[in-house]
């Protein structure tokens, strides 16, 4: 039995099977999101990276949680990079943690992995633009 969703799951864009979706918590991402770019309100720690790489999502933007000890707040970037998944974080001073819509609407990119950088995603960019770049790359690939 599937666990109930803890927050909202919003589809912002769709093209064929590819979607750009927003969640408040990474734990709301499920198996059927393996064709999607995910914008989440959760921190970008390792635990989320492990979960999302297993689900084989197609892109991730999360909150850097102040980056913190040993850069733990952005540790998922590397995990996702190892799986070829573009990922970036927004500064915890730019948006409300735990609120995926705030990540998407207000977030400013604070860190990006190599796969994301190849898509032209840079520090200081709006999360919306970064998400668009991930989504466009995904739909281009499908063509």
């Amino acid at each position: 039995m599937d666990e109930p969703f803890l927050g909202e799951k919003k589809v912002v864009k769709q093209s064929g099977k590819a979607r750009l979706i927003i969640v408040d918590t990474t734990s709301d991402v499920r198996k059927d999101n393996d064709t999607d770019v995910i914008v989440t309100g959760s921190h970008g720690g390792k635990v989320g990276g492990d979960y999302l790489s297993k689900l084989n999502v197609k892109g991730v933007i999360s909150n850097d949680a102040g980056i913190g000890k040993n850069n733990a707040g952005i540790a998922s970037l590397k995990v996702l990079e190892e799986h070829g998944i573009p990922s970036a974080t927004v500064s915890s001073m730019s948006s409300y943690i735990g609120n995926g819509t705030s990540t998407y609407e207000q977030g400013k990119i604070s860190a990006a992995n190599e796969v994301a950088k190849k898509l032209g995603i840079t520090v200081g960019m709006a999360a919306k633009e970064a998400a668009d770049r991930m989504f466009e790359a995904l739909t281009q690939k499908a063509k």
Partner: protein
Amino acid sequence: MKEVHKIVRQSGKRRIIIANSATSIDESNKNDVVVDGSHFGRNVGEMAFNAKIRGMIGNDAGKGLDNSCIAGLKVLDEHGVPAAAVSNMSAIIGDGTSTYEEGEISAVNEAAKKLGITVGMSAKEAADKMFEGA
């Protein structure tokens, strides 16, 4: 797939448990003191309240925009539930064991203050105070 919680202290039905993610907390954690690796944003406070936990310690995630990373402390305070956060420079976010073993308290709500929990205290001691508190 539900996370398996670590029980670090137990006396009768009273427990201190460790979770990496606050989203793994549910009604089976009623009356538990929960030490977790998540940020303590508003949504986490709501999850904790819905699970009727006894007390909670999470990660302050650098506090963030408008202190949104510790907004859950206030949510729980409104229901008299003690809650505290550890500094994100003291513990690894997403790792509940790190919160418990390495965490240093950086923020507390009023209900936690009443139990003698203060900024600078170790998370372990704060969890014990929530466990022992009335």
